[in-house]
């Protein structure tokens, strides 16, 4: 089987591993690195459960090969948690109960992280459009939209205060 040596920075740590060409990035993270926070809901790019950050942008981990991550920086829910980068989103998801079973949550948070970074003024409709590729069977989305909207609001306020100071 076609094997490749790769070197990846995963959650800030440099990792060297040998992977087979056909292995997608999520299987690599889950099976080889035991980073089980990234989930698989379809492996066809449709459900968004596997959404992670590669080189700072949200991607479907099931639609990228592990070997393609050679030289890249990968951040999973575990790393985003440890760095504190999405602490406000996690807190808002908790307060609004924007998760039930939690299976969609790591992917949803990765998508939301990109949204709040890129679209600081998104309204509810834009939030819905942005997360429209992340399936959640449990919540009905309303509370997820609430949680993201509240983070956007808080960040806007923080910016306004910062700007005034």
């Amino acid at each position: 089987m076609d094997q490749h040596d790769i070197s990846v920075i995963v959650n800030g740590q440099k990792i060297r591993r040998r992977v087979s060409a056909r292995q997608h990035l999520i299987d690599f993270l889950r099976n080889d690195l035991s980073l089980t926070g990234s989930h698989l809901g379809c492996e066809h790019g449709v459900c968004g459960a596997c959404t992670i950050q590669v080189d700072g942008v949200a991607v479907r981990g099931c639609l990228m090969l592990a070997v393609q991550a050679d030289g890249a920086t990968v951040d999973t829910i575990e790393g985003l948690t440890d760095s504190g980068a999405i602490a406000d989103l996690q807190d808002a998801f908790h307060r609004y109960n924007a998760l039930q079973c939690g299976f969609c949550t790591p992917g949803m948070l990765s998508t939301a992280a990109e949204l709040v970074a890129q679209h600081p003024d998104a309204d509810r409709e834009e939030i819905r459009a942005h997360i429209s590729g992340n399936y959640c069977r449990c919540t009905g989305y309303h509370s997820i939209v609430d949680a993201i909207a509240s983070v956007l609001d808080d960040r806007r306020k923080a910016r306004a205060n910062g700007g005034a100071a």
Partner: protein
Amino acid sequence: MSGRPVVTPFDRPNSYIGRAVPRPNAKKLLQGRGTFVDDIVLPRMAHVVFVRSPHAHARIVGIDRTAAQEMPGVIAVVTGAELAKVITPWIGVLTHLKGLKSAPQHAIAIDRACWQGEAVAAVVAETRAEAEDAAETVVVDWEELPPVVDMETALDAATPVIHPELGDNLAFRRELVTGDVDGAFAAADHVFEEVFHTGRHTGVCLEPRAVLADYQPADGKLVAYQATQAPHMIQNLLAKHLDLNESDVRVICKDVGGSFGIKVHIYPDEMATAALSVLLKRPVKFIADRLESFVTDIHARDHRIKGRIAVKSDGEILAFEIDDRTGIGPYSVYPRTSAVEANQVVNLVGGPYKHKAYRASTEVVFQNKNVTCQYRAVGHPIACAVTEGLVDLAARKLGIDPADIRRRNLIPDDAYPYTGLAGLPYESLSHHASLEKLLALMDYDGLRAEQAELRKRGIYRGIGLASFIEVTNPSSAFYGIGGARISSQDGCSIRLDPTGTIICATGVTEQGQGTEAIIAQIAATAVGVTMEKVRVITGDTDATPYGGGTWASRGAGIGGEAALQAGKALRQNILSVAAAMLQAAPESLDIRNGVVVDADTGNERLPLEEIGRVVYFRPDTLPKGLQPEFVVTRHYVQKDYPFVFTNGIQGSYLEIDTETGFVTLLKHWCVEDCGTIINPQLVDEQIRGGVVQGLGGALFEHCIYDDRGQLVNGSMIDYLVPMAGEMPDIVVGHVVSPTASSELGAKGAGEAGTAGAPGAVMNAINDALLPLNVSLAAQPFTPESILTALGRVGARVG
């Protein structure tokens, strides 16, 4: 949330009941540190992949696995006949569903596949990928048999009988007549009728079905890590069919990625996985692939119902009549059976109304499609859509406002106790209060005015209402009396530890509803500690009291009551020890925030840590005759009623683009009455999630089969689940009528959202199209079906 009034007698210091406490166990999920079955890895663990039938109905002439056995990583390739040596087949019948029949079903088919997707061989390998590689090389020699596909013709003489030993394709039939139905129809000023269809759906839990079975031959023990709603039921059935002692089977259910009734059944592939672990004497993991999920996770809701309503000219409803047909696949699912949904439809149609006559018949037929069984809100969305569709049909024809016809016919709020026409008692419902609350929340009159205004501009908006009743807190009338070992009682054990922490082990389970949070809130309240001092253990047959698990909206009502009683008893036990230590009367003391206080003044006397220290480490200092009991178990079963009914009503506001047939959901409302509300946020979120599942069924979701019994949209690309972009904001309101069948007074809320949403949407669509004289009754309502109804395009052929 803080503005919400405390609505219960639990309004005492240190009460968490009625409060929106964030779920303690959500944090790990937010950090990606949950433990789902696929996250668990055991030494020597193997992976199984099933070879599945590509045909709806075919005889297995032979299976050639020589190539597969030689593939890298392959451990075993096992056929149905081989597996049958370690696992016995089952028949999905219940004795109280009279006449229900089904055929023996094997974990892996032996000579014949009866639906596309049925497993016919298992390939076990070191990795999932290797198992898949090998599965592709298994060659099955098929002889195709004629499939029975159309439920309408399943009972025709010309249709082949799927299980000849059963005589015909009829699984179950029920007829019900209450009151003078013929008289009511004769006396009616009008009789309106409609044929309703509900589309076949499936659950699409984001986490696929999953089991990791670990048979340990040295002591004959089987540990199954399983994504399930009912661990003790699984334990019983694994033991029974694998011929193990029940006490040697342990089912562990950690985090579960959604269930909705999908994960409460016996699946042949999951049973086969356990059998393979026994056969191969090593851990075997099965994670359903998304494609196989579509053809093996239970389907539901495939009904055609002819409905009739008899009314007076003033809108008084005299009678309902329904004739239901449903196709359930080739087997009745074990052990809950596939007749329950149709049975529920019969029980629930017309439920909210005070008419006096009702006739219902249902026929449940076999066919060569995937099996159907209980999925969230079993039967409710069907019964609700039919009832509410007929009520609105009458209102439209008679020119009565939908709110008014409901005011006229809903059972009055002071009429309880009341017996529904299916013979089931309603303890106390609040249809009118709920209706009025909903109308106020919606600003119904304002919406009507807006609708009229916009109609002048060619914009078609519709408002739809749907009242419903919901079955919760089932007694053993549901399954137990039919012979299934599915517990309707549940227990909770609470232990006080030396640090003042309480550990609650409960038989109900968590799949995201917030069960653990609710149990913690109740236990904290009952004992008198803060939430931080509560740990909850669920989902382990070795560690929790025997119980039924979580289904039919029983977690809060049944599991919660057991926790309340256990907590209260532990509190008494603690207080009697404290009283001895303080030389005070137990009645004069209370426990608040983990401290024993004087009940009157609230003065702090003794922290629980101190009591724990003395009891566990210095019992010598306690009076001689005093034996503290700091573990208490209490059980609860609801015995007053077959089920505790709840009620509610939903409202939908939507816009139809009559040129494209697209429906835009503008907003949705639900008012429901789940009795005592333990955690308003969790209830609201259950409702919202449920509503969206109902909206999915109304507008998007549909398992489409072709005339050869092939599922043609069995992937997440083609089976359209509801996504954020199309879903509306959902407003939730409550009316509170606690049940007197328990001290807690909580009824269920898990299915209310799903129950009412499709009916509300259907009525809103038909309301929008009223000026165009068009109405629809077949879900899902797609752009094409709306355009067809509008006559803009012809009916689609083929």
